[in-house]
């Protein structure tokens, strides 16, 4: 069975209670599909698909991006680095 590693950060990691998860890949699973699988496992993530961006192997991808065996999928909530001073 092929699988992908998922990484969670910031508020999403706190809601799920984990920073990493392993997802088995069904036929044609997309980045958005990976998120759906995670919502079933961690119901507190429900609703966040509206704001999350996806990255596969450290590059931003559209939600429709197909996920392949061994990929690292990251759930990227709205970023807020730097400072507010600017």
């Amino acid at each position: 069975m092929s699988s992908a590693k998922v990484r969670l950060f910031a508020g999403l990691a706190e809601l799920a209670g984990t920073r990493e998860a392993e997802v088995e890949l069904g036929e044609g699973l997309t980045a958005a599909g990976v998120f759906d699988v995670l919502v079933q496992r961690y119901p507190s993530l429900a609703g966040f698909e509206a704001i999350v961006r996806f990255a596969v192997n450290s590059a931003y991808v559209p939600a429709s991006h197909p996920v392949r065996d061994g990929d690292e999928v990251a759930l990227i909530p709205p970023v807020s680095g730097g400072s507010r001073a600017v």
Partner: protein
Amino acid sequence: MLFEVTADELDPGRVAEHVRRDDAGAIALFYGVVRDHNRGRRVMHLEYDAYPEMATKVMRQIAAEVKERFGVAEIAIQHRTGRLEIGETSLLVAVSSAHRKEAFEACQALVDRFKETVPVWKKEVFEDGEEWVEGDH
């Protein structure tokens, strides 16, 4: 070019020296500093989370874009993670160029682009609660 995400205290001297070049007459160095208030609430400290592998990759991409657009010589960026106290430095951006105008403009463009795209997140901790900041508004 120097692009780092680190839990250690940032080092402005090292970042500025990294971009020093004989053909660059100007170095602009920006500090992002933890402020003690936001939207009328007193901030006790901040916590930064990051996706370090991707953050350094995205920093490299935005630096390449900015270098091309402004024709600057060299760029270095450092961002800190973990708990930061008021007054500590969260972000350093250094740019060198032949003349000062391009260095200032490129530095501002880098900070703006950083906030839009680099996977780094800030949590504000108040006296009576805490919240992850969504975007920079």
